């Protein structure tokens, strides 16, 4: 299983590479952002371990470039700053997981295996309807013109349900099946609250209410 290790600290890179090889990966090591960008696009890797602080650039830029060029291998980012905002921007840029330095090699390998397994069956799957595209892997909504909204689990499931059959009327009971929350008895008000929130993202006309019947996704808007 080919793996790209991007880490500029030579001592750490050497140690990690040998541990990863012991775990069954065949490892390429680079210490610069420039080379990482090239390798990630040219070679066919299954996974990458990416350090964010590189001498000639930001690891996030490398990641964005990979994702832009459709390099879809699993990526685990290493960061020295355990900031939540850093983690959010890392995942937004397309990472699958992050690990804060210092870490144990066993944990790195466990996390890597998990994200490789997760990305295994992953195909480029998205649901398109009208101006909207739902990215199933990243659980986010892309709108024509490039804006991207991240969704919570239920928002995503409701939208996927509605968008997979544009024009089809879904009753509140049907939509309720997509719902998962901590309420003992989820009621129809919860659905209404979610629909209100989704309408804020896609526009009020895109999700239509049919009185007494339910909701439908209008892809003609």
């Amino acid at each position: 299983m080919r793996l790209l290790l991007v880490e500029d600290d030579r001592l750490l890179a050497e140690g990690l590479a040998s541990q990863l090889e012991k775990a069954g990966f065949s490892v390429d090591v680079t210490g610069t952002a420039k080379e990482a960008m090239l390798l990630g696009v040219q070679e066919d890797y299954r996974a990458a371990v990416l350090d964010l602080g590189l001498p000639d650039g930001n690891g996030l830029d490398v990641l964005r470039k990979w994702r832009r060029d459709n390099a879809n291998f699993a990526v685990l980012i290493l960061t020295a700053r355990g900031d939540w905002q850093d983690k959010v921007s890392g995942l937004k840029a397309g990472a699958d997981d992050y690990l804060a330095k210092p870490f144990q090699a066993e944990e790195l390998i466990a996390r890597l295996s998990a994200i490789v397994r997760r990305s295994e069956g992953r195909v480029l799957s998205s649901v398109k309807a009208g101006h909207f595209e739902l990215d199933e892997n990243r659980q986010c909504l892309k709108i024509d013109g490039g804006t991207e909204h991240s969704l919570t689990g239920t928002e995503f499931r409701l939208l996927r349900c509605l968008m997979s059959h544009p024009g089809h009327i879904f009753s509140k009971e049907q939509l309720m099946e997509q719902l998962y929350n901590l309420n003992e008895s989820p009621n129809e008000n919860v659905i209404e609250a979610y629909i209100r929130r989704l309408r804020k993202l896609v526009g009020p006309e895109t999700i239509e209410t049919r009185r007494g019947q339910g909701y439908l996704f209008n892809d003609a808007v």
Partner: protein
Amino acid sequence: MKRGAVRGIYSMTLFRKLVSIKGTLLTLLLPAGIGLMAIAWLIHGSLLERMSREFVESRLKDEVAFLELNIRQADGKIDMLKTGDYFEKVFHHAFAIQSPDQTNISPLSWQPLLMPLLQFDGDESVRVQDATIASAPSDILAYRKSFVVNGVPIKVIVSEDMGALKNSQAELHAWTAIVSILLVFLLVGVIWFGINLSMRPVVSLQAALKRLQSGEISRIDAEAPEEFRPLVLQLNQLLDSLDQRLERSREALANLSHSVKTPIAAVRQVLDDTSRPLDNSVRHEMGSRLGDIDRQLEAEMRRSRFAGPQIGKSAYPVKQARDLLWMLGRLYPEKSFELSTSLTDEFRWPIEEHDLNEILGNLLDNAGKWSAECVELSLEQRNGLAQIVVTDDGSGVSENDQVHLGQRGRRLDEQTPGHGLGLAIVREIVARYEGETSFSNGSKGGLKVLVEVSI
């Protein structure tokens, strides 16, 4: 704080360009005062002119009426009237009387001036200015009246030399100007006095600032006028928080160096000793020492990153929560992270952005680790309280153990990776905002964490 910076803050908050309040008041009030005086003087001049003209005109009218009466009494016979300088002596005015066959003008030297006026009809007053006739005045006001006595049309003109009047009028106007200028000087004095008097507290404030810069005092205690009191208060609060921060970071650094240097010394000792073999137990020992260093560093660094309540800092709770929920949803793909809130995306809380991220991130991450399927975050604001509730559906924590949650150095479970610092950090940040963190059991058996911060 450097002197330049203080001055910069002053000039920016009080005025855009001008340097001092005194200067501004003077540049505003002085031209305004002078301008108003000048306008008053000009109005005075034109009023004086109009008044004197009206006065002279009414007198001329009276005299014409008197002459008309005389002529009517003489049945229109003009030569029957007392001529010569009789009227001039009585009224000090020149006059002209014209009937179809006779014209009387007195004094004669005014003839060239009055003759042209006799050629018109109609009752009106006429002003002749800039006439150039020798031995006659250059500026006169005349009143002309036409009437008929016994079928004979008669015109009468009485006129006055305005020159003399004008001279005395100019004199009066000049005196007014002098008085005005004196008043302007008085005004300047009063303004200057007023400014100085009202600026006195500011001057003492300025002096206090100087003493603050030179270190003579540590807080401003000067009597500030009401308008400046909030400024002084905020400045003092800022100084307080700077002091606290300095103290905290010193303390943190002292703790850190104490707890970090010893393990470093130990590890180096082992590495330097070439005669000592690096067997597994030594390696393990060294590894755990390095682990200690990392834990200490992490804890102190996180703590030093907390901002605490700060003026002018706020965060968008809903936006930040959405990002974090999405991220955790990616990290735990088999679990669902849900948001329930009635706040809008643009809603703000006066909590520093990084601090709020730490609170939400640690609570959600912790709940994510323990939950079976679902974590719910609720953000609400009620009665001036910001409420953050994180509920999970995991196995929960028994009520006896809940007391220990978030206490430093306590971990209820050693199997989940992480330092167990998360809840302790949340507690610490919330305490900085003088808020409350409380734990209870969720409706489905998991843990429910409630954070309340008054805002």
